[in-house]
């Protein structure tokens, strides 16, 4: 066991994946608690709930929502990569670098798709028209 103490991470794709997973995870916990705190206005009144939701429906927060999508996507897809390792797949561990780039690429692809969907299909970002 002592042999791991002297070891240092030497960078590389695996470490990048680990670091991004950590940072995205911490960001997501912050979001989760903020989200729950925001929604608790429902315990007060209907009007308070609407007001609490309206605060986060400005164009700025729509962009932040999109960033959230990117963070969730990365954490989920890299998380699946980690679940593959833990399921005992030696092949997944052998191809961990390729799996990282797959997760990273899918993150960007699905994120771009989501961004296009939001900007072309969500009227509330420009004008609030009710469906």
């Amino acid at each position, binding site marked *: 066991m002592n042999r791991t103490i002297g070891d240092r991470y030497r960078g590389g794709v695996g470490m990048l994946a680990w670091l991004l997973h950590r940072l995205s995870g911490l960001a997501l916990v912050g979001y989760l608690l903020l989200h*729950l705190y925001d929604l*608790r206005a429902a315990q007060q009144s209907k009007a308070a709930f609407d007001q609490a939701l309206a605060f986060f429906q400005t164009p700025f927060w729509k962009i932040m929502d999109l960033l959230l999508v990117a963070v969730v996507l990365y954490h*989920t897809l890299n998380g699946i990569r980690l679940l593959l390792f833990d399921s*005992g797949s030696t092949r997944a561990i052998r191809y961990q670098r390729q799996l990282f780039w797959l997760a990273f690429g899918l993150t960007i692809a699905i994120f771009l798709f989501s961004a296009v969907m939001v900007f072309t299909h969500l009227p509330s970002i420009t004008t609030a028209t009710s469906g």
Partner: protein
Amino acid sequence: MERVVGSATAQPQPVRVAPGTGTYSWLLQRVTAYGLIVFLTVHMIFNHYLDLRTGSKLTFELVNRRFYAYPVIYAVNDIGLLTCALFHGLNGVRNVIYDLVTNPVARRVLTVLVILVGLYFLYDGSLTLLALAQMQNSAGS
């Protein structure tokens, strides 16, 4: 000097870890990860994809209508998502701090703190869901 850790050619070996030395939090982190994949997917479809199609602004009325339209899905999915997200997130924070702090007393305090925060948000989040469900009944009558 055997330095096979992290080596590209190293063959992973099965390891057995004594129960109670972090194995439960490790296992639950995996279980909640699987849970989140399911619950978050349902959450994204029902809370966001359907919105894209209707283009409605997010208000109480909309949340209200959703609860009416799919009561079972929302009841099961919201509670599942709340529980899994809280455990996975707070245990994740605990994991990060465990990597930085090795003092056993500090770790014990941290664990208790994380459990208390988790229980509070689980209680409070359930109250929020309950409030939404109750308002839904009064609004619909």
